[in-house]
């Protein structure tokens, strides 16, 4: 969940239409039209990527009159399916995958199960990847892949390029080669496997007396 309380605002006088903002927006909410950047206010998630990278300092973040709460309802999807998808992606459903918005794997899984087909759609629906913009692309790509989805990066965009290696995929010869240099690959696999299989906390077990 994310509370979106900011909105990107373009100073048309300063904008030179370079398209940097378009290339870095994680939800594709800003586009250059007629050589000026235009913001889709409904779509903007207030991450400030455009404001932080505009080479002409033509964008400012302004406070929204009415903040938007961005959230996918986890309860609207069968939790068994959510769990199955998360664990296939080697994530615990309650594991936080976006530190800025505290978005958990289960919410991203719910978004995918409800039809999100790309990181941009996941970010638009959940708010994940609209805080620091940096750290949460991989678990989102892993969850999409686990759902059998192969998204294409936005054409000419810099939003993302591809999924990268996980610890479970490190070649054995690499592990052997660096075994004495402090890289604890196998030990980390054991730790992460325990996290993946740990029970969730937020859901009550069915009441035995009701059966």
């Amino acid at each position, binding site marked *: 969940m*994310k*509370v979106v*309380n*900011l909105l990107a605002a373009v100073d048309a006088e300063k904008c030179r239409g370079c398209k940097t903002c378009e*290339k*870095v927006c994680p939800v594709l909410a800003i586009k250059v039209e007629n050589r000026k950047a235009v913001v889709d206010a409904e779509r903007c998630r*207030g*991450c*400030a*990527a455009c404001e*932080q*990278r505009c080479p002409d300092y033509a964008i400012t*973040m302004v*406070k929204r009159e009415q903040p938007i709460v961005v959230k996918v309802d986890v309860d609207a999807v069968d939790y068994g399916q959510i769990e199955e998808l998360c664990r296939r992606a080697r994530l*615990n459903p*309650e*594991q*936080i*995958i976006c*530190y800025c918005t*505290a978005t*958990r794997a289960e919410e991203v899984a719910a978004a995918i199960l409800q039809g999100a087909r790309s990181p941009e759609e996941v970010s638009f629906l959940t708010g994940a990847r*609209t*805080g*620091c*913009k*940096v*750290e*949460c*692309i*991989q*678990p989102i790509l*892993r969850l999409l892949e686990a759902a059998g989805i192969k998204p294409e990066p936005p054409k000419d965009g*810099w939003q993302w*390029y*591809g*999924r*990268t*290696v*996980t*610890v479970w*995929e*490190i*070649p054995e010869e*690499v592990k052997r080669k660096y075994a004495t*240099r*402090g*890289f*604890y*690959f196998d*030990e*980390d*696999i054991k*730790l992460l496997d*325990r*996290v993946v299989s*740990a029970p*969730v*906390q*937020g859901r009550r077990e069915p009441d035995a007396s009701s059966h």
Partner: protein
Amino acid sequence: MRPPIKPIPPRQSQYGIDPALVKTRVCELPGMTSVLLKELFPDLPEVIYPGEGGVAAVRKATEEALQKIDMSKIKPEHSVNILASHHGFTLLGGEPYAEMLKTIKDVIETRTGCKDIRLRAGVGLRFRETEEYIKRYGLDQYFNGKAIGVAPIDQGIPIETEIGTLYGIRKIYDADWIVHAHNSDVREVHFHRQVDRAVKPFGMSYARIETRSTYHQNLGPRAANFTARAIFDSPFVQKKFAFASFLTVAPNGIIGVDADSDLYALNDRVTQIGCLYYGKMMTLFGEIDECIAALDFPCPVVYVFSAGVIYANFAGANTDLYDLDLPLPAYTWYTEAFYGKAGRPLLADIPPVNPAIKMCVHNYAWTGYPSAFFSEHIPTVVVGQEQADLFNRDPQNLTYMKHAVVAETTEAAMEFAYKVTGTRKVIIFDGAMGGINVSEPMAELLLKKAPAVSERVENELLPKWLRQRGVDR
């Protein structure tokens, strides 16, 4: 008791409040004192900065260190990117790092005749931060307009490694040669665990989001820094790598400059400094039984400094951050990620945030790093509504103030902390150079505990830490 050391001043930045709003520093309050780090650990090395020679000592040390570097492969018609990282600019005020960067440029130019020398300065999560430092230290003029800040969402370049494709920032690598300019400050040892510290920026400051996300989400807390080694070892990077130049840093200041065209040889030397000297400070911090932690430094919450140690590491000082047999410290993003919806860790053996920190007084610290985990787990008082408002506007900290309260003044915040916690032990993260600003009871505790800590680190912990990393003493 010694008077407090003058702290690093507030700094004008879009990530912090106006320095004029910081009316009182915590060290100025009654009962505060300082302890010189040499009083705690007499074996700490002599420093070249801070010192009487000022940053000129850094220039001299850089010139001497670079004498042994073979620069013959750099031809006059070539281009060179000097690669920098934002953390260097917050170290001891930033001037020594800026001076090393300027000196590297001058030496390359003089020795090789090369004129196309650029500065590429990477950032963390504050994408304009190195742009601010470039202006502040006149680096844009010094590099003839060829100094830029680069961010992890800038255009990328795929790099083929022995663990598959990873991604760097294109502008980092758009020259014939790259020079890795960094420092040995251990900074966030909770993340890299002092494993390949000297290599880390290749997976962080010089890397795209995909690579950084690999580090923080895909590999695990002790394998994470292999992403940096994989990139550095790639044929693509190796064919561009010229040499590395590092400010060598101990908790009490800059002890010299080390340069090498073999980064792993430099890395081993850096590991020894990191484990021995910083290891002692962190182990000593782990001996603190109860305290109020005061943040008062121009950096995000996690990165505020005391005795060369950042607040995030103090929040994990109840664990041995160097011991790789321990899977998770009390704080990393991995640890943070593993707290479930009920607010408890998903695994019972995940350590709690340092229980010695009874309260945090946030007198002055920046936005631009997700920090709500700290205010959620440590009772936090923020001084001034302006800072609260700033955090509420930061997309990375929308819930920081949900867990914190606001006090009007520094004095009121500290009085509140004293009353609620019942302790008078205060440790101030204000970047004081050469020493540490604390309250008198805290000074007494640190001076009492330091000798035994020193002996324990040298005889028991250091041999284990170095053995785990394959580094001989």
